[in-house]
């Protein structure tokens, strides 16, 4: 990177597009993780990663628009994510109790 550009960046802050790109990357990692990981807990974590990637976008946009609402949205999302986690872990627990496995590929009796 050109030193002058770096200096410019320090002055104006990192451009929004960088955050957005990061957010997109994180989201994609989450999606990919969901598709390739086998442990249910890990899969669930990937979902959390996706939600948090979106949170990053919200904040970046809020910053860009100079609005506070975007920040507020992240709190909503976090609350929702927490609720989801509570319910989700409970469901995962009952699954484990009944089947003694956390391998997502083994939860496939309902099919066709």
């Amino acid at each position, binding site marked *: 990177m050109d030193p002058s550009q770096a200096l410019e960046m320090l002055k104006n802050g990192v451009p929004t597009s960088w955050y*957005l790109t990061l*957010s997109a990357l994180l*989201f994609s990692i*989450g*999606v990919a993780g*969901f598709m390739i990981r086998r442990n*249910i807990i890990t*899969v*669930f974590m990937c*979902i959390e990663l*996706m*939600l948090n*990637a*979106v949170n990053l*976008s*919200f904040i*970046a*946009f809020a910053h*860009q*628009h100079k*609005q506070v*609402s*975007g920040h507020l*949205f992240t709190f*909503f*999302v976090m609350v*929702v994510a927490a*609720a*989801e986690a509570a*319910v*989700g872990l*409970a*469901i*995962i627990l*009952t*699954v484990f*109790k*009944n*089947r003694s496995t956390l391998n*997502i590929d083994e*939860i*496939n*009796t*309902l*099919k066709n």
Partner: protein
Amino acid sequence: MPANFAPSSSELLRFSPELILSGAGTLLMILDPFFGKKMPKLFGHLSIVAFILAIFGALAANGDAGPAFSNLLIVDGFATFFRILVLVIGILAVLASYRYLDRENSETSEYHALMLFSVAGQCLMVASNDLIMIFIGLEISSIASYILAGYLRDDKRNNESALKYFLLGSFATGFFLYGIAITYGITASTKLNVIATALNAPGVSLPMIGFAVALMLVGLGFKISGAPFQMWAPDVYQGAPAPVSAFMATAPKAAAFAILLRIFMTSFQQSATLWEPFIWISALASMTIGNFGALTQTNLKRMLAYSSIAHAGYLLVAVAARSEFGTAAAMFYLAAYALMNIGAFGVIIHISGKGEKHVQISDLAGLAQKQPVTAALLTVFLLSLIGVPLTGGFFGKFYIFHAALKANLVWLSVLGLLNSAVAAYYYLRLLVVMYMQEPGEVTNSLEPLTPGLSAALVLPAIGTFFLGILPGAVLTFARSAAIFTR
């Protein structure tokens, strides 16, 4: 701003259904320690009362229609229509659940509380005017139904159903949320009407709109179980407790369609050229996958799940019409569909027996000889699902294809109607089994209909005929409610 912080009385009124439902849900949980074991039916009764109160609330709110909470909510005919629809579904689902919960010796308070919360979330969704509110409503509704899907904790099918629903549902929600974020990024707002105007402004990045629309469609497509995001539905409906499947196949779906219509008919109306082809393809694919998938099923619940995918396809045809009339048609169809589907699931609840052992199509054998009334009621629902005249299902299809032809979607209409002829085949199979085969083990040892279940069958049947013979009232209301699309 601080002056406005306390909600006005009309704001409270416009929010009353959600308040009543969540209040009632909380009340049920408080009452559980006192009456949980002694009076299991009490909670059902109470939730019915709550639903009825909420219906009154919704009607009262409609009398004082308008926005609430700085335009986060909007109470209009559209919202009221769907609120009442999901509330009625709630009542029917509760009626259908009495016998089921009794048979499974299950706790009732949590069940009904979750039901109330879920409906509250749906009421919120349909009345939202803000993407974030929609998201919150959607999650309230979904989280409650995740639990409901796995309500019988020791049942492996329930577990699996809940897990699939939960994981895939959250996955899809992630996409939906991302779509909201991008929309917010482009327009600096999450208010639907503001978004619409902002998108019209010059200099908006078109690919970004495309991304936003695409991501939202993924999330909503999942909720309505439209192709190619329909795959969870058969597994989840099959695995969940039958009354919950009945509920899930109707209320969340209706609410999801409501927000799909609201978002795409207001915010993204101008970008219709973007999404209309996808809706077109998705409609056709949903109808085809649903109907052809149902052809080979032997499990009743699974068959109805595929059929619900197909019905989502018909509904998408109405969305593709992109008109006031199409919206009204979709609304009408959702009402008719909810009635016939709950009715059909009601019969499954009736015959399935403890532990849902009898959910095969063959278990219906000879039902008409043992319980002719039950068979006749299921016949009504099936004829409605086929789309035979004088039932609500027929008028629903009729309005939808009318809207589609009006919008010049000739080929989609023809293919859709041909699809409905295919669909006739698997519904007819049930009629064949019920009427033309000798009674089997299941039907021979069938207990009589309980009052609650009878009500859950008779009321939808009456409703189905009402919509089939005098559809005018409902359609007129739906059309007046659909004017927001102008």
